[in-house]
């Protein structure tokens, strides 16, 4: 009996792992690929020395692109869901064209990513730092460059 229950527990562990992999593989197979430009930030660290940390350009959305406008007190907006529309640029990279805290449908050449407002790590007050959990973004558009 114990052995059967153990098999059930181990089976459930495997099922969860395989199901997660299956869902992600399905997104990779059917999702739309968008090319996002990266930019280096904070390239020096007291402990690590010179190194490279990358961020997406679309992670910082200018406040002027928000409609309706975001709150002036951004600290109170941390965690708020935002929807960011991207369109392909001339250089092949996708860029932000508009954003909103309300959900909206994108036009034919737009991809709308869902993210949330995060505390800014770098940069000034003219932009909103948006975190895009790839799992959530993948539901809309699929991860841009899945790496193993």
């Amino acid at each position: 009996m114990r052995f059967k229950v153990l098999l059930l527990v181990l089976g459930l562990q495997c099922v969860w792992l395989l199901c997660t992999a299956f869902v992600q593989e399905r997104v990779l197979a059917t999702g739309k690929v968008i090319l996002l430009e990266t930019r280096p930030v904070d390239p020096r660290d007291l402990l690590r020395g010179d190194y490279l940390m990358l961020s997406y350009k679309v992670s910082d959305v200018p406040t002027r692109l928000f409609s309706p406008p975001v709150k002036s007190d951004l600290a109170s907006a941390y965690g708020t869901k935002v929807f960011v529309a991207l369109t392909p640029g001339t250089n092949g990279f996708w860029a932000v064209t508009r954003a909103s805290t309300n959900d909206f449908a994108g036009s034919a050449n737009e991809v709308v990513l869902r993210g949330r407002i995060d505390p800014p790590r770098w940069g000034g007050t003219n932009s909103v730092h948006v975190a895009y959990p790839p799992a959530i973004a993948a539901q809309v558009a699929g991860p841009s460059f899945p790496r193993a």
Partner: protein
Amino acid sequence: MKIGDIQKLQEAGLISAEQRDKIVAHFKLTEDGGNRFLAIVSILGAVLVTAGIILLISAHWNEIPRGVKIAGGLLLMLAAHGGGWWLREVKGTYAKTGEALHLLGSGLFLANIALIGQIYNIESRPPDAFLLWWLGIAALPWLLRSKAQHALLLVAFGVWFGFEINQRGSYIYCGEDDRQLLLYALLGLVYLGVGYGLRRGKFADFAAVTEKLGLFIFLLFSYPLTWKEFFGRWENAQVGQWVFPAFAALALVVLLATMKNLDGLSRQWRWTWFAALLGMAVLMGSVWFGLWQTAGTAPHSYWEESRSYFAGTLALFVFCLLQVQVGLQERSPFLVNLGVVFIALVILAAYLDLLGSMARTGLMFVIGGVFLIGFGVYLEKKRRGLMRQMKLAAPGAGL
């Protein structure tokens, strides 16, 4: 016990050849030397082979197909559990090795969760990964009758708790705030209470490990109460003030409900022990609500001092003394040893708090060193005395 020592006893005329053979047969002693050398060489070889395999895989990690990585992770996990079950339950030998394999299997489940996250760049809430791990292995201590699995389960819950506390947006968020250590101390109290509760019933075997881990966690995270420059940066506006009272109430209710299972203590001592735990919780509560902040100072300044270390040092010292007494009555060497260790740590903290600013001078280094050596010798003598006292009182020690 070595076979060479038995041989020397016989050569000295203390035992006969017949007695020597009986002792050797009883303890199943084998010739010294060869086996140990073989074991060392085997371990070194295993380490080299493992390191080589790891390096080989890491060097070609990006080229390995995703399916192979996932299948490899799953197979390793299942093989670890399968091997563990075979050794413990089927073959019936090498039970400890079997238990270690099961432990490895549980660890590999977490590794597989991380692997899936890494392969598909899943970066959702990190605490959720640990919660999933905890849920996945929650039934294993019962299924495997394994204390090690139970300890791992408690650690897994603690890790989730720590990540959840530091996750922005969490209901129990307490990140960037020294006071989160107080919540870990309360978690230790909850474990302690749960351990007392497990003493009676089907899971009595898991009681000792739960109590030990709980008390250790409690003391470990209470210890910063004795530090001078701690709990100064105390007010994070995003921290819910209700979190500490809620957890403290939970811990105290669990302790109150299970304290009756402390059979080694008289009713009076049970209440004394509960009062000691309650007193520590109240002290931590006063620190949580900032009652020890020096008046007239800015609450947000980075290195603001808190006066709580005066009370913290005294309270923890008295608590440890009581713990030693409780340990003697419960016949628990662990309680006594842990109490003595933390008494030493509390005195060390008090020494540094009071005289630390003078320690820049050479003379203070000399005086401090002599004091610490002398105090250490005294404390160790005291500890050995307590251990002897406990053994004389009753041959079968408790926890």
